[in-house]
């Protein structure tokens, strides 16, 4: 075991894993995190906390993960390269270890242009691949990027993301392979709506044997309203929603129910794609729907390991 987190145990036991995202509040309310965590604690194996997603200021992922940990949940701390240089990144990793956080998802981060401080200075001292490699070096060799020794162990289960729909499409497999080579133990993908294209990408991943060196969790974003689907198609960087899906939601009498059905169908299809070891549900601002989706997908109860 690299970190011994619940997520790692579930994946290493070859169980189909479920992770769920918890969006932190735009303020300092620990209650907001506790309420969301409590509502979905039985429905997933681990819980991602986003790091100022879409460049909008929110409670830090580190603090929110600390709260989840205190509640007995297994947090996945998301960490971006946009806002912190290598000193702060490594410092926050040490802080996470101190709080018992054992899963770390390394990302580049959306550009500040999308957020509520578009005039901010971006950092990007190191990139996500370099961050993954740095965390692995901290864990395996007990060393910081500088080569100096870390005092004490850094048991981190390292995650990375990949967007199967981004371009250049032909380079996406090589890019993922690079992240796995750098040390990514698990991968959470961008939301899957176009299943055939995702399956095509997974085929390439498996042909390269990448699925045997890491655990791939398919991203799932439940859609609540037609407007949300259109918005994601048009404005959310890297998300592709097929027009057929939008038409189906437009025609539906009960959009919420139809949206859930669409997602359940996607989960059903994704579950059987070779190489997929789990799903990552990002119900942005709609976390309370996660238990219903996971239950109706036949993925409850979650394994107790």
């Amino acid at each position, binding site marked *: 075991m690299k970190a011994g987190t619940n997520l790692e145990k579930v994946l290493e036991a070859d169980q189909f894993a479920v992770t769920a995202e918890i969006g932190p509040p735009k303020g300092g309310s620990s209650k907001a995190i506790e309420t969301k965590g409590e509502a979905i604690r039985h429905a997933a194996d681990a819980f991602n906390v986003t790091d100022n997603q879409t460049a909008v200021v929110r409670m830090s992922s580190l603090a929110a993960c600390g709260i989840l940990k205190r509640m007995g949940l297994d947090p996945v701390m998301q960490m971006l*390269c946009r806002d912190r240089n290598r000193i702060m990144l490594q410092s926050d990793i040490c802080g996470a270890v101190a709080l018992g956080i054992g899963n770390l998802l390394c990302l580049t981060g959306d550009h500040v242009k999308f957020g509520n401080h578009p005039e901010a200075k*971006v950092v990007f001292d190191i990139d996500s691949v*370099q961050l993954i490699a740095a965390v692995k070096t901290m864990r395996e060799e007990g060393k910081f990027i500088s080569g100096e020794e870390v005092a004490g162990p850094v048991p981190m289960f390292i995650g990375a993301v990949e967007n199967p729909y981004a371009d250049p499409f032909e380079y996406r497999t090589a890019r993922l392979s*690079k992240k796995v080579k750098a040390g990514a133990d698990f991968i959470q993908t*961008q939301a899957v709506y176009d299943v055939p294209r995702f399956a095509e990408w997974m085929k390439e991943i498996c042909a390269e044997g990448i699925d045997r060196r890491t655990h791939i969790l398919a991203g799932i974003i439940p859609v609540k309203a037609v407007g949300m689907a259109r918005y994601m198609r048009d404005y959310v960087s890297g998300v592709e929603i097929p027009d057929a899906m939008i038409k189906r939601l437009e025609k539906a009498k009960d959009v919420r129910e139809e949206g859930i059905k669409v997602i359940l169908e996607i989960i059903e299809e994704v579950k059987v794609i070779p190489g997929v070891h789990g799903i990552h549900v990002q119900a942005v601002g709609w976390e309370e729907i996660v238990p219903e989706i996971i239950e109706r997908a036949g993925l409850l109860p979650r394994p107790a390991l």
Partner: protein
Amino acid sequence: MKSITTRKPLEELLELLGDAKRVFVVGCGTCPTLIGTGGVEQVAELSASLAESGRKIVGTIVLPVACEPLPFEARGEFLAVVDGAESVFVMSCAYGVRQVSDLLAVPTLPALNTMFVGREEQGGEFQEECSQCGDCVLGLTGGICPITRCAKSLFNGPCGGSVGGLCEIGGGVPCGWQMIYDRLKALGRLELLEEILPVRDWSKSFSGGPGHYSMNQRK
């Protein structure tokens, strides 16, 4: 290669001037003349606007190359024409402002914003290509700089926001990594993208304090 500048709004210039009434305006005969931000015409235009705003224009000049040191023999003449001005506006990049400021004892103010050093891709289209990082990687990236052409200065391939050859920041900005990929593919060098490029040493540039190069240190 040109130093790309844009005009500052008149209101900002008036604010910079404060109470100064007597103003001299300097233009530059090189980059600002070519791109139309600080040549003869723009110097005349700014002078007219300042005069309309109640300032007295002591005089104007367009230096051939504002960023070059003025020849020793020309300095006296320059000081003579500027004499009497309470403030001087320089319509050039920051290098010209700096050079002129060195000669004068009165406030020397920028009338332009210095944007970047641009390559002329085709008539009138200038593109930033280099951030002067002090550790060139063009040899590994098909001649396209990831620090400059990628909005996130990534070193190990495109982020998830590259779609259809365009960057997620919008405005039709091309994805630098798509460009690098295409170029390396054409060169048959895609294997270069499989290597993990290590963290950078920014002390050679942005984080290393002001850059300085001395030809006099050669041994």
